[in-house]
């Protein structure tokens, strides 16, 4: 008895809380985070989570939105990072120029790769993306004159931002840099969200559902897939640029296929059918690993075990699970638009 009335109450609560509320809370938490964690390490962990969130959401543009499972997404993390590093170290130390270089180089790369990749589907698409990323990895590994090879690149700056002559803000402090990343990432995620809810975004979902029918409403599916590929790559490139300046050091490991696998992992872990799910997955994965790694020697067993259990028992991802749970509670109350799309 008690539980049913409790459920009813909860379900009514769920109805009353629009999606916007959750996002507001999340943003408020993000803004207050440096004050809440009170420790430089956690501030920089949060920074890393933000960057990983952007990366996972960018991948989800392909996996969850367009139904294309890319196993080579690390290529954008890596290329974006190298582009930022090469520009700011060798040409001109500007944050904005670096980030634009990161995004633009990845847009170009995605365009080039995409032309070949989007013609394939399913596992074949996955394999071609994987093969491409491995090629780039190999190039980065061996082209020591430019990339530093296995040693990587060191001393990537965090250039000041501001208006020259008028004012400037140093990003050397953990908190400043966190807020800088927060603003950039939020803006880009907001942009991604806009795209997701635009007519274009809906076409991508339609492609995920039924690519052939999309062709038969008069839209060239390959071209739309290519655009999605480029958008995902560009967003990934920005994440790479941010990562580059965040770490101050990059190496070809960023491009290795296991890194790609990790991004897929974040995406699925959080839930690929919800917009913020991948970000949630990124946070969870980094947090769990950071925690477990520091408290046990055989931490892989724990992380692997959690992964196995999640796949077996929470197939919709963590956020996906909570959303489903919430929607089941509110069944009957809201029969309207599928907000999960």
């Amino acid at each position, binding site marked *: 008895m008690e539980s049913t009335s409790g459920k009813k109450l909860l379900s009514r609560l769920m109805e009353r809380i629009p999606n916007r509320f959750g996002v507001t809370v999340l943003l408020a938490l993000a803004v207050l985070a440096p004050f809440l964690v009170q420790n430089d390490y956690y501030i920089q962990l949060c920074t890393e989570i933000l960057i990983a969130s952007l990366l996972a959401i960018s991948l989800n543009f392909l*996996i969850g939105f367009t139904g294309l*499972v890319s196993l080579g997404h690390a290529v954008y993390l890596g290329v974006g990072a190298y582009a930022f590093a090469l520009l700011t170290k060798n040409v001109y130390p500007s944050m904005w120029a670096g980030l634009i270089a990161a995004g633009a180089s990845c847009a170009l790369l995605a365009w080039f790769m995409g032309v*070949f990749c989007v013609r*394939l589907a*399913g*596992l*074949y698409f996955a*394999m*071609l993306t*994987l*093969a*491409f990323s*491995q*090629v780039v990895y*190999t*190039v980065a590994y*061996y082209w020591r004159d430019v990339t530093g090879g296995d040693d990587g690149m060191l001393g990537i700056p965090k250039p000041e931002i501001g208006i020259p002559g008028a004012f400037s803000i140093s990003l050397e402090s953990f908190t400043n840099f966190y807020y800088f990343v927060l603003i950039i990432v939020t803006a880009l995620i907001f942009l991604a969200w806009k795209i997701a809810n635009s007519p274009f975004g809906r076409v991508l979902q339609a492609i995920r559902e039924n690519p052939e029918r999309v062709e038969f409403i008069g839209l060239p599916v390959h071209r739309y897939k290519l655009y999605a590929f480029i958008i995902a790559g560009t967003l990934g490139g920005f994440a790479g640029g941010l990562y580059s300046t965040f770490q101050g050091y990059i190496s070809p490991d960023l491009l290795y*296929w*296991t890194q790609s*696998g990790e991004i*897929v*992992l974040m995406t*699925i872990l959080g839930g690929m059918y919800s917009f913020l799910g991948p970000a949630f997955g990124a946070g969870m994965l980094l947090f769990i690993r950071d925690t477990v790694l520091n408290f046990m020697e*055989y*931490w*892989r*067993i724990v*992380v*692997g*075990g*959690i*992964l*196995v259990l999640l*796949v*077996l028992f929470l*197939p919709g991802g963590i956020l996906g699970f909570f959303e489903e749970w919430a929607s089941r509670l509110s069944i009957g109350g809201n029969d309207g638009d599928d907000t999960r799309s």
Partner: protein
Amino acid sequence: MELDVSFWLTQFLNGLANAMVLFLIASGLTILLGVLGVLNLAHGSFYMLGAFLIFSSSIIKNPSWFWVGLLLAPLVVAGFGTIIEAFCLRPLYGRERLYTLLLTYGFTLILDDLVLLIWGRDYKSVPIPALFEGRLTIGDFSYPVYFLFIIAVGPLLGVFLWFILNKTNFGKLIRAAATDSEMLDALGVNVNRVFTGVFALGAWLASLGGILAAPMRSVEPGMGVEIIIESFIVVIIGGMGSYLGAFVGAVLIGMLKAFGIEILENFAMIFIYALVLPILILRPRGLFGETTI
């Protein structure tokens, strides 16, 4: 001139030996993809388990250790694969393929640490079985007998696989399941058992690869991660589901690695991808791929 012939012959055999180990792993991987549609990332871990088990049997100070291990270890690993398939993979078949990818990734993490727990961290080295010690020498040409053994085992297992797939009932079931597992079920065949059998066969092959490689290589956690990406490339080249393709793909990769270093020593890896990319772009099903996954 005389010297050059023996050099090139040696390089050719090196490529072949390398290819045969790859073939063992890739053949299991490809059959798994063809029948179950599962990209098993833990396949490399089975390779690793095979190597660790043969290490354990090499501790027995008896000349027959290698044969005992060769016989028993793959069975142990196959049994282990059976458990993973039956309890963890089976519930996932109805869901998106991605989940099996994640699950098997989880197992690579678990198994990497599990071997550390069981076998400890010391470097491990498996001696060459006494029977295959030494070199075969003909004039200027001299080549390790054990490598020749590996080169011989590869085609033998290829024939064995061909026999299993084409001449046995189990093989018929595998081929039938690859085309239409639901129909097979409706004809009264317990398809789950066929799947488990295929998974066990794959694990058996991979661990055999680990056993054969162990005396030539080191035995260490994480060795599976190294090998899986190469075998995966072999599968892509050969075509998913085709063990013949796996054989050809493995030989191609082996040769590229052996002869690639003659041309561009540091960039030998580039040759492999230079082969893979056009194949994937022009013939996404691979050289011998026929089944649609």
